[in-house]
Every structure is written in structure tokens, then in C-alpha cells.
């Protein structure tokens, strides 16, 4: 199994605040890597660095063996291979659901409009959103918006999907409809990196769980290992707090 994504000694600082510190990570094909950790531990920054929305200060990031942190790399071409879903959905409010999904296939991949619409409609029906195609995002529930956002990132056939706390802005009742899509994608063999606070969900999809603390991975391993039998005291402390909050 080859690594789709590989991070070597990545460092990222905002001013004097070091957010990622000498962090390394390998994500093999068809696997899901789950990042857990308190807010501010660097999970989101890590995802944004992979997507080149942030420039790293040291280290290297490879996508399918190609170094994407090379300054001469064509950033837009790399991003085409990566899908990203955000905590706050970030759908385009002036476009309908269908237009949100077809924008990138038409403008970036130069697909025919009809073809892009067909693909989008198939994805929408697969995830039970066919009747929402012509609605504007603000008319949808949070769960529906986030499902549309996931479909939007899938429509370009990404090599790797980055999911940044995609259920954190949702009502507990709506969380499951979003997570079930991710489970489906995992079944399909999509390679994913996710940041989440849903430990139960992490247990279901994760091939590897990484616990981040102060910009570094303190503990990593299978969900069973990290979530059930953590060895690092900080991981134990974090999971205890999560447990107290009723999220495990």
C-alpha cells in the first residue's frame, strides 16, 4: 500500500506561536486517519497546510510522492486533487445547491455543463438530497448544508478528502446524517484525513487515530489502542474530559 499523503517534520508558526512542531504523518491509500485533540492543538491548521491554504515554515509534504510544498508547484493543480470540507460548511450562498456542486467540475475540470449536472444529481440522489438541487443553501438545515458541502468536494473526484470538524457546528440529531456519508465514503475506499470530536465515530472509521497536543502527535495507533487504552498521560487526560462531556 503506497502512501497518498506523507508529512515530514512539518512546522508552522503564527508569529511566535508554534502551531505545528516537527510533525510527521503517513496516510496510506484507502485509509482514514483521524486527528483528535483539544481546540487549538493544531488539527485545523494541519489540514489547511495540507491543502496549501497555509504555507508551512519547515518540513515537507508529499502527495503521491510529489513534494507539494515546493514553492514552484502549481498550487491550483494540487488543490484539484484534494477535497476539503469545513466546519462552517462554506457553501456559496448566491448559488443553488446544484450550482455549488457543478462550479468546480465546470470551471476547474472543464467538464461539460450537462455532464457535471448529471454527476451532481447522481451524488445528490445517492445521499437523499435530490429534491434540494435547486434550493439556495440558506434554505437548508445545517446537516443538509454539510452533506451538500461534502458532495461538492466529491464532485471533483479528489485523491484525498480533508474533513475539518465537519459536525462541530451541528445539532446532535443532525450529526449522524453527515457521519453516515463519511462511513459510506470509507466503504468506497476514499482516503481521508479527519479532525473530529466524535470519538464514537472515530472508532468506527479510523484506521489510525492521532492525538495532537501543542502541535505534535503525542500518541498514535489504532482506535482501539488510542481511544480505549491510551498510554500517554495527556491522552488519558483529554479522553477523560471528553468522556465527562458525554462525547465518548
Amino acid at each position, binding site marked *: 500500500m503506497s502512501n497518498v499523503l506523507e508529512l515530514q517534520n512539518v512546522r508552522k508558526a503564527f508569529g511566535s506561536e508554534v502551531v505545528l512542531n516537527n510533525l510527521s504523518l503517513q496516510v496510506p491509500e484507502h485509509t482514514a486517519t483521524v486527528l483528535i485533540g483539544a481546540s487549538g492543538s493544531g488539527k485545523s491548521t494541519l489540514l*489547511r497546510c495540507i*491543502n496549501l*491554504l497555509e504555507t508551512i515554515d519547515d518540513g515537507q509534504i508529499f502527495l503521491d510522492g510529489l513534494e507539494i510544498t515546493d514553492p514552484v508547484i502549481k498550487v*491550483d*493543480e494540487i*488543490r*484539484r486533487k*484534494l*477535497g*476539503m470540507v*469545513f466546519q*462552517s460548511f*462554506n*457553501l*456559496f*450562498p*448566491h448559488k443553488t445547491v446544484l450550482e455549488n456542486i457543478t*462550479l*468546480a467540475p465546470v*470551471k*476547474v*475540470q472543464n467538464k461539460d455543463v450537462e455532464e457535471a449536472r448529471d454527476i451532481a444529481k447522481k451524488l445528490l440522489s445517492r445521499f437523499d438530497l435530490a429534491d434540494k438541487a435547486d434550493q*439556495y443553501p*440558506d*434554505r437548508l438545515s445545517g446537516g443538509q448544508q454539510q452533506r451538500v458541502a461534502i458532495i*461538492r*468536494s466529491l464532485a*471533483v473526484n479528489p485523491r484525498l478528502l480533508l474533513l475539518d470538524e465537519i459536525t462541530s457546528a451541528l445539532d446532535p440529531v443532525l450529526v449522524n446524517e453527515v457521519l453516515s456519508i463519511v462511513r459510506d465514503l470509507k466503504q468506497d475506499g476514499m482516503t481521508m484525513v479527519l479532525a473530529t470530536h466524535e470519538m464514537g465515530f472515530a472508532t468506527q472509521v479510523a484506521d489510525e487515530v492521532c492525538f495532537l497536543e501543542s502541535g505534535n502527535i503525542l500518541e498514535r495507533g489504532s482506535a482501539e489502542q488510542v481511544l480505549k487504552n491510551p498510554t500517554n498521560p495527556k491522552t488519558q487526560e483529554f479522553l477523560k474530559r471528553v468522556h465527562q462531556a458525554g462525547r465518548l
Partner: protein
Amino acid sequence: MSEKKTSAWSPSLRELDRRALRRKLNRKQSLIAAVSSVLVLGTLTIILVTSPGWEVVKATFFDIEYGKEVFPTVAKGLWINLQLTFFGGIAIGIIAMGLALLRTTKSPALTPFRFLATAYVDIFRGAPLILIILLVGFGVPALRLQGISSNVIVLGTIAVVLTYSAYVAEVIRSGILSIHPSQRAAARSLGLTSGQTMRFVVLPQALRRVVPPLLNDFVSLLKDTGLVSILGVTDAVRAAQINASRTFNYTPYVVAAILFLLITIPMTRYTDRAIRQRTQAQNSEGAI
């Protein structure tokens, strides 16, 4: 599915009662509004008409016969204002968009143009329009340059365009800056280039947001085209002025003012409505 539910539902007695009561309350409120309007406006009219100077005011400002006589000349002048607004408006839109994009770009190759755009906006936004009109209208012909029009209408339009493109550029730029960075992040993460992100994601939202201030500027533009009359352009203002100074009756000014209002008031109403409809289609909170 939801339609089926609606057709099966019939309002309860309590709801029917409520509706009847609401209708009654509405009728009462309309009655109060009508009575108070008649009272207030009626009193104002009586005070105005019975005041000692009213006959003189009426003869000087509201001479209907004279108004009818000058109407064609003033209306013909207004046609010039409208043309100036139309062609000027197009030029302003294009130039302002260019300035706004230049001022928000980060492209290193465009750095000198960004500075120039900033200087342009600072100068033309800060200087009084009437000075720019005088400078361009009288100053440029004095240069006796080959190939530069000495037509006062053209020069007046150029002066207005110079000033208004600076105003409008700032409005558009504020719209661009008001779009949350997460929209840009979402677009870039889909692989859109920065140009595509601007064109398909940022600008459409930004422009929609600045429609009300842009409309304000458009109405001001129409009114300010009246300033080119100082160059001797026979627009509505100038036509009214000529007639008023001939007879010392100021009705032509009132005619010109009414003509301007006939255009500007419906324009504002129409745009307000368009914005409201747009907001409701996109935003479930539009009604609030």
C-alpha cells in the same frame, strides 16, 4: 408531500376567530391612519394657502401656465442629463471595477498599478466635483491639444466619470472586503484559481451586497450631471435657468426638480423591491 398536508388542513375555529380579530384591528388602524393623515396634511395645506405670502409664492414658483410653456425646453435638457448618466454610468462601472480589483489584488506584477489606483481614488474622491468639472471643462481645451474633444458635453461627462469612478470603486472594494475569507478558502480548496474565485464566488456576492449604496451613487450621479450646466451645456438645470432669468419667475426650476424626482423616486423604489426579493429567495431570514 408538504402540499398534501396543506390541502388536508382546515383552520380551527380559534384560528378563524383570530383572523377576524386581526382584520378588525387592521381596519381600525387604517381608519386611524387615514383620519390623522387628513388632519395633519389638511392643516398644513390650510396654513400654507392662507399664509400672507402664498399668492406671491404661487405666482413665482408654481405658475402652472408658465410651467407648461417651459416644460418642453426643460424636458429636452433633461434628455441630456439622462444620456450623460447612461454613458457616464457605463464608463464609471467599468473604470470603478478595474480600480476596485486593482486595489484588492495581491499580484506582485500589478504593484505599481495598485499604488496608482490608490492615488487616483484619493485625489478624485477628495476634490470637489465642481472643481474637477471646471478644471476639465475649461482647463483641458486651454491646452489646445490635438485630438482632444472641446465639446463641453464630452468634457463634462469626463469630469463626472473621473470623480464618480473613484466613489464607486470604493463602494465595490468595500463589498469585496466584506466577503468572509472562508468563502475564498472554500473556492480555492476546490481548485479554483484566484481569478476564478474572484469572478464566480467573491464578486457576485460582493456586488449584490453593494447594490443599495451603488444605487445611491447612481441617483447622485443623475443629480450631479446638473453641475455640467456651469460649462454651458443646455441640460435641464441650464434650460430652467435660462427661462427663469428671462422672466424672473422660478417655476422652471420647480419643473426641472419635479422631472428629476419623477425619475429618481421610482428608481429607488424599484431597486429596494428587487433587493428584497433577492434576499428572500436566498435567505430564510430575509423577512426579518
